[in-house]
């Protein structure tokens, strides 16, 4: 499906009240790709999606859609918007029936009534809400509203579908059903899907490529201590094997290929082996030191680089420096598996 970038951001900067909320020197999305955008609240995920769906014009920089520069002051913007649809984090349904909501995008495109109702019903079926077709949208629960909003976006069959935390209000079965539906749409129609989430597991499970945002900047595509490996059984315990000689214990019922990450704050740093119930104890030399506010970010080469965050006080008490050998201890339960 990859036919080159469908969307490109070039030197895009956006600000609210003079505060820069997005600063992207260069970012591109391939046609037919599945993308995850991760980051904490306020990282700029929503702003990025609004810019990518042409709802907001960036203060600086430019956007290219299918190789053409987007001109926000031009009349043609509406036809571009019809090719990209954003499902908002807290979606709004119009004061109308569920079916008419789903058919809205088809109505604005001038699709004839019986045809738009037929297509709307079909999409409503894919999100499992056909029985609510004639109900007032305002009577639905949060999760149902989210599913109707997704159906409404799918009905327009856009080239790019952007979703802002689409499963935030959904329970597990509905979340996986929505994710499966999105994958199907991507395979069937080659729709480029960009999904913003704070759920790393979802982002890595869903996407070909994950963009991490922090304070409006893309900070590489990986969180700290992200490893790709294989979950196997070892000594009666679950082990993430990164290569033949390297790995650590985790807690998971899954087996086979997986991603896993360890929160740097969950790692205890010590100069001697630390006696505890934690299953994982690695050692290595400090290869990087970086101050982050009142914390120190240590990069330790344990065979693969491992990042840990410790307080300035601990750092000074332990008299750590580059090349100091340290032990890193963390519980199997602190490893997040994707």
């Amino acid at each position, binding site marked *: 499906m990859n036919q080159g970038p469908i969307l490109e951001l070039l030197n895009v900067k956006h600000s609210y009240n003079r505060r820069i909320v997005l600063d992207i020197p260069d970012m591109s999305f391939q046609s037919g790709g599945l993308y995850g955008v991760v980051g904490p609240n306020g990282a700029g995920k929503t702003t990025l999606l*609004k810019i990518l*769906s042409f*709802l907001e014009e960036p203060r600086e920089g430019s956007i290219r859609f299918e190789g053409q520069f987007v001109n926000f002051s031009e009349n043609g913007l*509406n036809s571009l*918007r*019809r090719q*990209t*649809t*954003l499902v*908002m984090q*807290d*979606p*709004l349904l*119009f*004061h*109308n*029936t569920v079916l008419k909501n789903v058919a*809205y*995008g088809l*109505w*604005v*495109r001038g699709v004839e009534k019986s045809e738009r109702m037929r297509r709307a019903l079909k999409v409503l079926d894919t999100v499992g809400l056909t029985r609510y077709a004639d109900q*007032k949208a*305002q009577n639905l629960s949060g999760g149902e509203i989210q599913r109707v909003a997704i159906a*409404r*976006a799918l009905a*327009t069959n856009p080239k790019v579908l952007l979703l802002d935390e689409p499963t935030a209000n959904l329970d597990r079965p509905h979340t996986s059903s929505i994710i499966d539906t999105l994958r199907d749409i991507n395979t069937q129609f080659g729709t480029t899907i960009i999904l913003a989430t704070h759920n790393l597991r979802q982002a890595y499970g869903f996407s070909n490529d994950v963009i991490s945002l922090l304070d409006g900047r893309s900070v590489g595509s990986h969180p700290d201590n992200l490893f790709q490996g294989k979950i196997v059984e070892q000594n009666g315990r679950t082990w993430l094997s990164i290569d033949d000689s390297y790995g650590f214990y985790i807690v998971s019922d899954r087996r086979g290929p997986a991603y896993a990450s360890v929160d740097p704050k969950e790692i205890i740093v010590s100069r001697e082996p630390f006696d505890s119930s934690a299953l994982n104890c690695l050692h290595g030399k400090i290869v990087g030191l970086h101050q982050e506010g009142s914390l120190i970010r240590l990069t330790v080469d344990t065979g693969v680089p491992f990042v840990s965050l410790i307080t300035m006080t601990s750092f000074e008490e332990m008299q750590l420096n580059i090349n100091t050998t340290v032990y890193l201890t963390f519980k199997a339960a602190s490893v997040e598996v994707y």
Partner: protein
Amino acid sequence: MQYLFEGIAKALSLISSLDPEVLSAVWVSLRTSVTAIAFASLIGVPIGFLVATHNFRGKRPVVLLLNTLMALPTVVVGLIVYSFLSRQGPLGPLGLLYTPSAMVVGQFILATPIVAALTLTAVQGIDPRVRQTAVTLGANRLQLAMTMTSEARFAITAAIIAGFGRIIAEVGSAMMLGGNIRGYTRTMTTTIALETSKGEFALGIALGVILLIVAFTVNILFQALQRRGI
């Protein structure tokens, strides 16, 4: 107090016997007010919508003006329109003075700012996500305006009802511009004023009751519309 009770009893008999004078006043009132509110809605709703959705120089004074005009005294409107329509006035040759059309003009001027100002408030109160949702789903300007109006439809209907309530109940401009001609420009309110000044309470009370029934019916209809919700 006796005269009042007698008045009420006689009023009920006038209503139940469908007294021609009562019916004529009700008809003139409804005809002029419905016509005036129809024109006021056609002009006032778009004005309110445009002012609410556009930022332009002088927007604040325009909003202030609309709000001030909501409290326009009816006799002032009567006076202004009278000066235009009277024989010496610029529109004198049209011969509209003391006709239902003149009353419609006066009521239109009274109702339009109310409809416009309340529509403005209604549109400003629309959830900002309505615009973003419509736009991202591909709505053009006209479709967006239709969607926004549809989302604010209850508040806009309430604005029209408020305008209607004002003009069906007003007496000043109807009296000055219609001339209170029996069977022609005599409305419910002008009849009440006239009959009361003559000490004839019965007809006045009967029409007062009908005015209340009209207001009540309009609001019942509005409520039913809101309950249906779609």
